[in-house]
């Protein structure tokens, strides 16, 4: 409560992007897909399609209303909400704009 | 400064293996193998040492697994799938 946060390092108003860096960070792309339906492709030839609700720096991903599809096209689900381990994620693509 | 967060001393999964020390556990391993034995020790990689252990190897063409007994065995953590206490 009483902590008045006088950390000198945050006084610089946090704007490091003033040098107009045009690079788009990969995680920003994922962040823009939050709330949208995405397809997550795994290294194991499986894929998961569902609404992206969150992720972390390891790209562990929280999905809603998920369908799992294996390499032969068999589907499983829908699963209401799941945390997908980032360890085997190869690619995440948004299926709507 | 006394309590920064209401950190309710959440037990981590590995803490729960500690309760199995000196007890008989079943360790499911990669490659359709299981190992049952008394847990002597383990580390954060799930490397473990079991005593009076029996290894069960499941082959596709036979129902009953083949059993192999060992006095003391070291299991490398990367092949561990799950660990469960067995009532004995």
């Amino acid at each position, binding site marked *: 409560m009483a902590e008045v946060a006088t950390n000198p390092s945050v006084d610089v108003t946090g704007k490091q992007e003033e040098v107009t860096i045009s690079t788009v960070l990969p995680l920003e792309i994922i962040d*823009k897909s939050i709330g949208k339906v995405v397809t997550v492709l795994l290294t194991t030839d499986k894929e998961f399609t569902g609404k992206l*609700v969150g992720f972390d720096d390891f790209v562990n991903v*929280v999905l809603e209303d998920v369908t799992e599809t294996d390499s032969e096209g068999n589907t499983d689900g829908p699963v209401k909400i799941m*945390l997908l381990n980032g*360890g085997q994620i190869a690619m995440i693509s948004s299926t709507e704009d | 400064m006394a309590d920064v967060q209401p950190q309710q001393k*959440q*037990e981590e*999964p590995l803490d729960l293996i500690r309760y199995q020390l000196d007890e008989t556990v079943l360790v499911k391993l990669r490659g359709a193998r299981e190992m049952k034995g008394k847990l002597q020790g383990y580390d954060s990689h799930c490397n473990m040492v079991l005593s009076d252990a029996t290894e069960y190897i499941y082959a596709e063409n036979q129902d009953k697994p083949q059993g192999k007994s060992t006095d003391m065995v070291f299991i490398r953590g990367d092949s561990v799938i*799950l*660990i469960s206490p067995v009532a004995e």
Partner: protein
Amino acid sequence: MSEVSSNSSIKTDPSTFLSGIIGSKVSVKLNNGVSYVGNLQSIDGFMNIVMDTTAEFIGGAASGTKYGDVFIRGNNVLYISKV
């Protein structure tokens, strides 16, 4: 901590999700296709998991194997979902 907050209203990041499902009935699917359904006792950053009253499912069907307590090593975990 405050750089990315564009969609914060509908965001559930993994740690929020996990703390919300501790104590509930979950299904954990492993990379080898086997699933475990039980009560989630505890989980850590490696996705090491401890569950109790756990049943094993192979190919969607109960294998008949039940575990009182079970520790699952995180590297085998494909996903964890609330059931």
